């Protein structure tokens, strides 16, 4: 699964959690760019990503989620077994 596929799946999760249309995401998108993505929504989005991708992020990884790209990279690291 490449970056675009991951971005598309994350966009579907965000739309589901926020109950909105699927947002246009790129690696530089931040929570500030998405209406409704506040701190509580962030937790719902992250836990849904964990559930859908069968991964679990550490507190250190969570603290580094400044962009959607950083989430994509963390998923890839987890799936590559790093």
């Amino acid at each position, binding site marked *: 699964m490449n970056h675009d596929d991951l971005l598309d799946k994350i966009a579907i999760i965000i739309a589901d959690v926020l109950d909105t249309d699927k947002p246009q995401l790129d690696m530089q998108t931040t929570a500030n760019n998405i*209406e*409704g993505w506040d701190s509580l929504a962030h937790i719902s989005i992250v836990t849904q990503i964990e559930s859908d991708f069968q991964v679990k*992020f550490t*507190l250190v990884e969570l603290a580094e989620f400044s962009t959607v790209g950083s989430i994509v990279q963390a998923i890839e690291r987890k799936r590559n077994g790093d």
Partner: protein
Amino acid sequence: MGIRRFTLHDQLAFANLSQDHNPIHIDPIIARRMIYGQPVVHGVNALLWSLAMLAKQLARPTLIDGLNCAFIKPIVLEADTAAHIDLTEPNKAKLEVLQFGNPIARFTIKYRDEEVLLGRGTSIPWPAVATSDLQHHPVEVTAQSMAAQSGSLELFLDVAETNAIYGSSLLDIFGQSQIAEIIVLTRLVGMHVPGLHSLFTEIKLKRSLRPDMSGLDYQVMDFDTRFNQATIACRSPSFESRLKAFLSPSSVKQAGYADILLKAGHLNVGAQRALVIGGSRGLGEVTVKSLAAGGADVLLTYSTGWDDARAVVDDVVSHGGKARALRCDVSGPMDAALLAFVAFKPTHVYFFATPYIFSGQKDTFLYVKFQGFSGYYIDAFNKILQPLIAAGTRNFFYPSTVAIDEMPAAMGEYTVAKAAAEAYCKWMTQNRPQLTIFTPRLPRLATDQTVSVLNVDNRDSDVMIEYISAFLAQCRRP
């Protein structure tokens, strides 16, 4: 669409109906020290209000097949609250609750007509109020014991009170059993698990009949320690449900006077008579203790928290310091308090009065909220400053904020009001050179205002001692 304002009276009525007496919903004094800084509406109360509006549009008795509830933001009191109902899809309703134009709760309900509803038209064998677990004080479950929580709650429903609050269509359409099984969920979360420090965020409920059951069984399925979030599985006669609730942080306890005495005893406050506006908790409390530790005679004010103010005064006085407390609500008439301030003849004034600061929405600027902040930060400060300047006070400590540098997306009204207050202070000192108004941009410090379910970088509020020291150095400059 329906519009209303929830009041504290509504909160108390729903607390009696649901037996959810969590103080975050009904006690303004305690709630001001909890995560939202003020009482907030029970999420299930907003849900039933929305369902009652939906009921008026449904002609026939209705079975709930599924219900998803997301409590997105706190629903504050005395603010216009709107509910939109979308019935464009068959057998599905989407309800959205908004405040200040922003969605704060979303409910999606899947339903079908049903002629025979349990409890409709006949009385169900439940009491009007719970007859067991009668405590009015919520349990305080710790993070360590959360995962082991399980138990049962009885169902109850005060039919007359439910009709009085929501109108008769709610029970006529949805029946007593379904509504009772929803109401008990707020009692579970608010009073039992997580209890006192709960933050109810989600209900996912689906129809699954268990006619042999007469109550609600619950069990914590997961407790995510990274977010302090509990997932609770529930079973009742009509539904299986999964709830999500945070264990929110408790109020921040500032250092005691004895500890601050060790850190602030070196402060050279001289023969200072210090007036600390908003000194019963948070940064004001640390400032009171620091100044008293340095030898100042302190008059602190509080708005509503007499118990907190008395605790600060007792702590200082019992260790030999000088402090007393006076009630002053800066958002109301201050004539009597201003006379007392002038009579006190303060040499230095420290201004910490503030409303709850995290009430904004991302990318939204509401002038009414800006006015609310400005009422505290500019109008009230000006009203206190003017008579004291006339009486000879020259030194004012006015905490500003790094938010002016950082411009947080969801704090527009607060940030602009603080920037305006900074400009006011600069204008005052420009035109009255004899004044010192010290306006440090404070970082995010650990107080009741800055607690969060997320791990955030709050600096120890003891750092206030350094700011006070810098202020006093500026006051001494010729």
